[in-house]
């Protein structure tokens, strides 16, 4: 196992210390329970937005804390949902009197821990709304699964809802925006390699040199299918097809095209993928009006990529364009 780490059990806390040193103008870090919160919290009168999840997906979520995006992010152990005390304390720290939105990715652990935290927060008189993201089309949403995973659209929702909160919308309205974004987004991912969780010491799964996994999540687990490695263009087609089929995107729709590195895939390859995804989207009659390209929701050092397509109306475009000032995303300020 080759990583730039010290002891596996110290990975999360040491990364938090690095964030604390690096961005004092943007965030503060609370330890035990661990969470990152915006330096000017609480912002009175504004709906606060709290998210979180296992560590190992950086910059998600801690890199998205700041003006125009998250008020707080709760990092669990690597690939492990954070615990309710983290979300409770974070919620109390950032509550500005206008309620708190919890953005929760659809994983059993994330749902259970956030639910417990929301109950505890409500018991302390804080109004909480929770919205679940579940944009991954690789998994069937049925009675026979734990539902679709929350992946790439989560990043987009955090930005868009952050803007909605920043401009003073109510908790109900911000939650509605979140549900709308989730409903209008679809994602699909693939991996060329697995990743190695620090305490495990070896890759979560082995992938032969000539094979790839299609339909992966962000926790290093195997995907839906394993097959022989294909070209970037063929892979892009394999990712775009279920996305386009799943949401009745209509010709003429404006979309945001988000091409994401799983962590180990470099930018030059992302642009090759973006090129083909853009051409496919455009050929389907969609208008790609915005994009995001880079490592934003990662799985440690996994090589691979994911694509997220988000339908946008004028309001979502405005909210996407609104100023944001976080470690990982910054524009308009």
């Amino acid at each position, binding site marked *: 196992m080759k990583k730039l780490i010290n002891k596996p059990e110290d990975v999360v806390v040491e990364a938090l210390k690095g964030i604390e040193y690096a961005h004092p103008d943007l965030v503060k870090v609370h330890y035990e329970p661990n969470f990152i919160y915006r330096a000017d919290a609480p912002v009175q009168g504004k709906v606060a937005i709290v998210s979180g999840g*296992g560590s190992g997906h950086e910059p998600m979520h801690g890199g998205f804390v700041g003006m125009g995006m998250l008020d707080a992010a709760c990092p*669990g152990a690597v690939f492990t949902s954070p615990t309710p005390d983290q979300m409770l304390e974070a919620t109390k720290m950032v509550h500005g009197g206008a309620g708190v939105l919890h953005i929760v990715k659809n994983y059993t652990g994330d749902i259970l*821990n956030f639910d417990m935290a929301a109950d505890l927060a409500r018991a302390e008189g804080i109004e909480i709304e929770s919205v679940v993201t579940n944009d991954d089309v690789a998994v069937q949403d049925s009675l026979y699964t*734990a539902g679709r995973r929350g992946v790439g659209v989560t990043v987009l929702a955090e930005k868009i809802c952050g803007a909605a909160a920043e401009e003073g919308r109510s908790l109900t309205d911000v939650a509605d925006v979140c549900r709308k974004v989730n409903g209008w987004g679809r994602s699909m991912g693939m991996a060329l390699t697995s990743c190695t969780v620090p305490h495990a010491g070896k890759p979560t799964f082995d992938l032969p040199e000539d094979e790839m996994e299609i339909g992966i999540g962000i926790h290093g*687990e195997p995907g839906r299918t394993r097959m022989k490695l294909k070209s970037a263009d063929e892979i892009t087609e394999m990712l775009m097809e279920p996305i386009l089929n799943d949401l009745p995107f209509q010709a003429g729709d404006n979309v945001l095209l988000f091409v994401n590195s799983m962590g180990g895939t470099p930018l030059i390859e992302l642009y090759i993928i973006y090129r083909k995804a853009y051409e496919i989207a455009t050929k389907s009659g969609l208008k790609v009006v915005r994009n995001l390209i880079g490592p934003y929701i990662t799985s440690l050092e996994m090589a691979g990529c994911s694509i997220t397509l988000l339908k946008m109306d004028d309001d979502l475009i405005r909210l996407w364009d609104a100023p944001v000032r976080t470690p990982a995303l910054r524009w308009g300020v």
Partner: protein
Amino acid sequence: MPIGRDDVIAWLSAYSQLLADNREYLTQLDSSIGDADHGVNMDRGFKAVLGKLPTVADKDIGTILKSVGMTLVQTVGGASGPLYGTFFLQAGAATANKMELSLADWSVAVEGAINGLMARGKANVGDKTMVDALVPALHALKQAIADGIDDHEALRQSVAAAEQGMKNTIPLVAKKGRASYLAERSAGHQDPGATSSYLMFKAMMDAWTK
């Protein structure tokens, strides 16, 4: 064989040791059909439990079990944290103020605990989760008690049922939890949560049938 407070503590210590010993094994199981953290999560949680026990060692069984539940909720994370946490919180509620339990009392507490866990996780037998070990273990325990079998044998039968339930997860296609994302590819692998549940019952037997 009455189960006293010290027996409960002995059980928790035994379970903690089994989790430490099986940390890599549980991690391996959670690599085949998961994200490779179940072993570390449970080990972390029960090391924290061990650290907390001295502060409640003089309290009633209910207080001890609730303390375990809260500690697990605050340290384990993932899916298993809230589920096992609920298990212990419910067991603690059912044993409030008790300093000693009969095995029948304990089976009632365990039943409430499992019901709470199943209500929270919404999994049933056959979904390829810890429920697949817990429910058979409970049934075997209740059945043995009802049949008047002696306590030590009743425990052994519940552990055997837990073990069988754990192994029965191998061919199942997961319908709950992270393994369900793999659909048919989850078949052929033993569920990590069912394994840690089996170990929990095994620890009971190890601690109480000396």
